[in-house]
């Protein structure tokens, strides 16, 4: 993940992931767990490079769930959900954005370390900052 400086615009390579919610009884579930948020302790996050990063991370993927099918990986940082920015959200606000009852599909923009590597390798010498 690129190091972010608070207050400065953040640049990252993101992947678009579309997850269709699965109906289980009365709930619509996505099949993963999130951690992090601006009200949480960022030092405990095992997936972030920068231990001051208070973003929302994917901590667990339910095997066989919609998230796994859509190619979401553990440790992904979620940048946007359906157009809403997730980098400065409390944990509860993030949960609410993902679990809106009237939305069947969530379109996420996620970033992970391997994406940066992939872009670097594919572009050859051209470095994206």
């Amino acid at each position, binding site marked *: 993940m690129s190091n972010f400086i608070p207050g400065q615009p953040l640049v990252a390579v993101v992947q678009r992931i579309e997850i269709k919610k699965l109906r289980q009884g009365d709930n619509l*579930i*996505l099949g*993963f*767990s*999130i*951690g*992090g948020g601006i009200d*949480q*302790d960022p030092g*405990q*996050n095992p997936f972030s490079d920068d231990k001051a990063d208070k973003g929302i991370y994917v*901590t*667990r993927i*339910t095997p066989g769930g919609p998230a796994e099918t859509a190619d979401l990986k553990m440790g992904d940082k979620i940048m946007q959900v359906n157009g809403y920015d997730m980098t400065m959200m409390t*944990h509860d606000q993030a*949960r609410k954005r*993902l*679990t809106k009852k009237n939305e069947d599909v969530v379109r996420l923009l996620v970033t992970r370390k391997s994406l940066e590597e992939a872009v670097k390798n594919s572009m050859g010498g051209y470095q994206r900052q």
Partner: protein
Amino acid sequence: MESLTVMDAEEEEVLQVLEVCQTIEEFREVIVTTIEEDSNNSPPVASSGTGTKPSQDDNWGETTTAVTGTSEHSLSQEDIVRITKDLEDSVGLDCRRYFTLTLAVVMGLLVFLTPVAFLVLPHLLWPEKLQSCGTACEGLFISVAFKLLILLLAVWALFFRSPRAGLPRVFVFRALLAVLVLLFVMSYWLFYGVRILDTQDDNYQGIVQYAVSLVDALLFIHYLAIVLLELRQLQPRFSVCVMRSTDGEKRHYNLGQLSIQRAALAVLEHYYCDFPVHNPALLSASKSRAAKHLAGLKVYNVDGEFPAALAEGPGNNAAAGMAHSQSRAMIAAAARRRDTSHNELYYEDAEHERRVRKRKARLVVAVEEAFTHIKRMQEEEQKKTPVDVMDPREAAQAIFPSMARALQKYLRTTKQQHCHSMESIQQHLAFCITNNMTPKAFLESYLSAGPTLQYSRSHWLARQWTLISDASVTSGLSDGCVFQLKCVDFSLVVTTKKIPYIQMSEEYIDPKSHKFVLRLQSETSV
């Protein structure tokens, strides 16, 4: 204080207006006495004036001023009003009260004398045929006597209390109970008359047992009376919201199953304790603002059509519609107009607040200083130094002048001056001095409006309540029923709501199961 002298030219009567006090503390009565020329009529006490004999004093017409204090023989206008009001209050000659009282007394006598009559009549009418009373029978005499005594005490406790209110309609439960008792006693008399008096039954023990059963049944009816009249309404079933129409003061009370008139009585009894006294002077500001709003707009009809005076039936829809559109136009214009009255209100309120606080500060200081001028004298000191000793009333009168002005100004600013007369203030001061109260305790009753009962009788208006209700006033309270209690210048609107049925369930938590971990990072599954 000015004293005017108005002279009538006639020789017989001299009308003198004595001691017209126009101090703002109180309006003393204008005392009007006629001093007649002949000395048969004794003039008022302590006349320090000069001329009652005009023939002797030449300067009499110009300079005579007779200043008399309030004499015991003079009547003022206020006194007359007060006497007539007292007459109205005390001589409450409504027939209904006396009718119910006589009915109750007659029924009581009937009920108590019946068992005694049952026991005594056989001895009077056929003494020779009667079997002698054995041991068991005499034991029953004691039982009858004591049960009658208990019944007497119980009836006295429950029914012989001075009525605390006059309600508009008859009290249904009492009427039913009276009817029940009458029927009951009548049926016993009927049976007694037919089966015992006519046949002249000689089994005295049976007769005594019959009388005992009557007294037992009367005691059970008394138990029924207690349950119906007193116990049934103790369990709270309804929550009533009482709101005063003039200033919106609201209170909530819990009442049991009562008829509307009894509920109204309970509400009024709470009103006298809980609600701050109704002060019409506080409402004048909003009324003047309302008047200003209305005065702002007038409606002119440019087209020359005259709206019909009455809108009768469907034919005059046009006229009704025009009146409707006129009022709508007025409302729209009022909304659009640049009204700065809110600004004035804001600044007026702020200014008033400041003024009240300033006067309050001055008042508190004045009262504290006044209280330092007197101290309670101990018994030993009295023997040692012979100083001028005062009782509480005199002490109050001594220190009152130093705080009178500040208090009067404060009361005027908070518009409470009509609630407190000078005598009442001095009485209260004497009371506080007697009971060793601090200046703050003395002031508390003037700083905030207290319940109505705290003030003089003229504020109570206890005889002028009207109950306005859609449903019959003897029907019971029900959910959503609304009734009004109207007094002279305000009314109390009472709404009822049923207290919900509460379903409680139980959960057991083992005390050992309270365990905690540190929260490192929360994880939520979505």
